[in-house]
C-alpha cells in the first residue's frame, strides 16, 4: 500500500524536539509511529542523538543482560541499605542464598515443633540445631583454605580475613533473627529464647580458630560433634535446659575468648600479613 507518508520525512528540527521530549502527546506519538517505519528518519535520529547517551543506554542494556541477578536475600538486604560492593561479595557465599536459609529455617522449625509437641520435655532438638545453624552457615560461607580461588582472594587488597569476617557477620545477621523468633515459640522458661545465643556466638569463633589450622570442613565437623555430645549427653541425667544454664554459659564465654585470642595471635605472627584466617 502506497501512502504519502512513505515519501514524507520528518525535518531535523521536529525530530530534535521529539528526542528532547518537547512535543505534545499526539504529535510525539505520530512522529514515533513514523520513525519506527521510516529508515531515513531513523538514520536522522541516529545522527541527532548524542553518542554518550547512546553509550550509556547500551551499557545499561548490557548491564541488564550480563550482570548476574543477586540472590533474593541479597536484594532484600540491598533495599535495607547494604552497600552494593558488599552485596557482590556476600552473594557468592552459598549459605547466604535463599535455598540454604530456607533449609536452616525448616530444620529449626521442626526442632521447635518437636519441643512444642513434647510440651517442653524434648528441648534437645532445638538446643542442638539452634547454635549449629550459624556455625554450619559460617563454615559453608568460608570456603576451604586450599580452594584454588583463595589464592586470588588472599592476594587481593580486600584481604581474606576481612572477607571471612564479612561473611560471618552476614550469616549471623541472616540466621539469628529467625532463630530468636522460633526460640520464643519453644515452650519452657522464657529466657530460653535467648540462652542458646551463648553457645551459638561462642561456637563461631571456635570454628574460625580451628578452621585456620585444619580447614573449615574438619573444623565444622569437630564443633558439630562436640556440641551434639554436650546436648545429647545432658539428656541422660540432667535437666533439659542444662546445656544453656548459667554455669555452662561461663564455659562457652571462656572458649570464645580463648578462640579470639588464638585468632589474634595468629594474625600477629603469621609471616604473611593479612592472612590471619
Amino acid at each position, binding site marked *: 500500500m502506497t501512502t504519502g507518508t512513505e515519501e514524507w520525512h520528518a525535518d531535523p528540527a521536529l525530530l530534535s524536539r521529539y528526542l528532547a521530549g518537547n512535543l505534545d502527546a499526539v504529535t510525539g506519538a505520530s512522529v514515533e509511529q513514523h520513525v519506527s517505519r521510516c529508515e531515513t528518519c531513523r538514520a536522522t535520529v541516529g545522527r541527532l542523538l548524542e553518542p554518550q547517551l547512546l553509550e550509556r543506554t547500551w*551499557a545499561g542494556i*548490557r*548491564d541488564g*543482560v*550480563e*550482570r*548476574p541477578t543477586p540472590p533474593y536475600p541479597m536484594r532484600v538486604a540491598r533495599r535495607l541499605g547494604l*552497600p*552494593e*560492593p558488599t552485596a*557482590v*561479595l556476600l552473594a*557468592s557465599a552459598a549459605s547466604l542464598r535463599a535455598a540454604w536459609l530456607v533449609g536452616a529455617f525448616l530444620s529449626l522449625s521442626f526442632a521447635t515443633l518437636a519441643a512444642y509437641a513434647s510440651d517442653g520435655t524434648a528441648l534437645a532438638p532445638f538446643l542442638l540445631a539452634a547454635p549449629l545453624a550459624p556455625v554450619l552457615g559460617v563454615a559453608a560461607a568460608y570456603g576451604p583454605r586450599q*580452594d*584454588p*580461588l583463595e*589464592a*586470588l*582472594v*588472599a*592476594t*587481593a*587488597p*580486600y*584481604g581474606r580475613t576481612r*572477607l571471612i569476617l564479612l561473611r560471618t557477620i552476614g550469616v549471623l545477621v541472616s540466621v539469628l533473627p529467625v532463630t530468636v523468633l522460633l526460640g520464643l515459640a519453644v515452650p519452657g522458661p522464657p529466657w530460653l529464647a535467648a540462652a542458646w545465643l551463648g553457645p551459638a556466638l561462642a561456637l563461631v569463633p571456635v570454628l574460625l580458630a580451628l578452621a585456620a589450622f585444619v580447614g573449615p570442613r574438619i573444623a565444622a565437623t569437630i564443633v558439630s560433634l562436640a556440641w551434639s555430645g554436650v546436648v545429647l549427653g545432658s539428656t541422660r541425667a540432667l535437666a533439659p535446659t542444662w546445656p544453656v544454664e548459667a554455669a555452662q554459659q561461663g564455659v562457652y564465654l571462656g572458649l570464645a575468648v580463648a578462640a579470639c585470642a588464638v585468632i589474634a595471635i595468629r594474625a600477629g605472627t603469621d*609471616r*604473611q*600479613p*593479612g592472612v590471619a584466617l
Partner: protein
Amino acid sequence: MSAGTSTVELTGVGKRYGRTRALADVDLAFDRGVTGLLGPNGAGKTTLLRIVATSIGADSGEVRLLGRDPSRSHADVTAVRRELGYLPQELGYPSDMTAFGFIEYVAVLKEWNDREARSQEVRRVLDAVGLADQASVRISRLSGGQRRRVGLAQALLGDPRLVVLDEPTAGLDPAQRADLRRTLSALGHRSTVLLSTHQTEDVAALCERVVVLAGGTVRFDGAVTDLVATAVGRVWLADEPGDDALVSWRTGTGRHHVVGGRAPVGADPAEPTLEDAYLLMLGPDAHRVHTPS
C-alpha cells in the same frame, strides 16, 4: 618508587617446604617488559611467582616489590596488592558464576567500588581476552581455554603495574596463544610482566628476557637471543643420531636433530632454537621431565 629501584627486587631469596629446598639464594630484579621463567617441574618457578604475588613469604633474603617490603606491614602488602595482577597456576572457578560475575567479584576484592566504573572495567578486560560475547555464560559451560582466559582477564583488572602469570598459555590452542601474545606484549609496554611456561616457543615469541631456573637456583638470566647464542655450534642435522648427544631425535625429513656432544660424521651445523639452548643450559637436569616434542 624512588629512582634506581626496580619494580621487583629479590636479594638472596630462599624458600623451603619441609626438607625440600624450593628456592636457594635467588638474586633477581625485574622492570617493565615481559620476562619468561623456564625450568623443569619442581625448579621453583611457581614458588618464585607466589613470592612476587605476595601469596607466600620468603624464608630468607629480601623481597622488595614496587619499592616496598611486603612482609613489613599490612599497609605495605596492601599497597603492593593494589597494583598487582595475579593468575595462579591452578585457579578454581565457582561453577555457578558467569564469566562477568566472577570477574566482577574479583573486581570488588580489588576495591572497584563504583558500580558503573566496575562494569566498564570488567567489560574491558573481557574484551582484551576475546571473551566479550561469553560474558553471561556460566563458567562451567566454558571450554578449558576460555576458562584460562577468564583467569587471565581478572589479572588485567585495573592495568596493574606488576603482573604475575603462572602458566598463562596452558590449555590454549595456537590461535588463542597468538591472541594472548598480542595482549601480553601490549601489557609489557606499561607493566612488569612475569610469566612461567613450559613452552619455549612462548618465551621466544613473547619475552625480551628469559630466566632459566633449575633446582631452585638461577641458571641463566638474560636476553632470549643471548640464551639462543649459547647453543651456536652445538646443534646439528645429521644422518645418524649423535653417540654422545644430550638429546637427538629424527625429524620429519628423516635426518636427526642432534643437540650437544660431538658433531656426528657428515653433520651439518643447524640454527639453534631456544629449546636447544634451554636443553643445553640444563644439561642432564632437563632430561628428568622435559622431552622434546
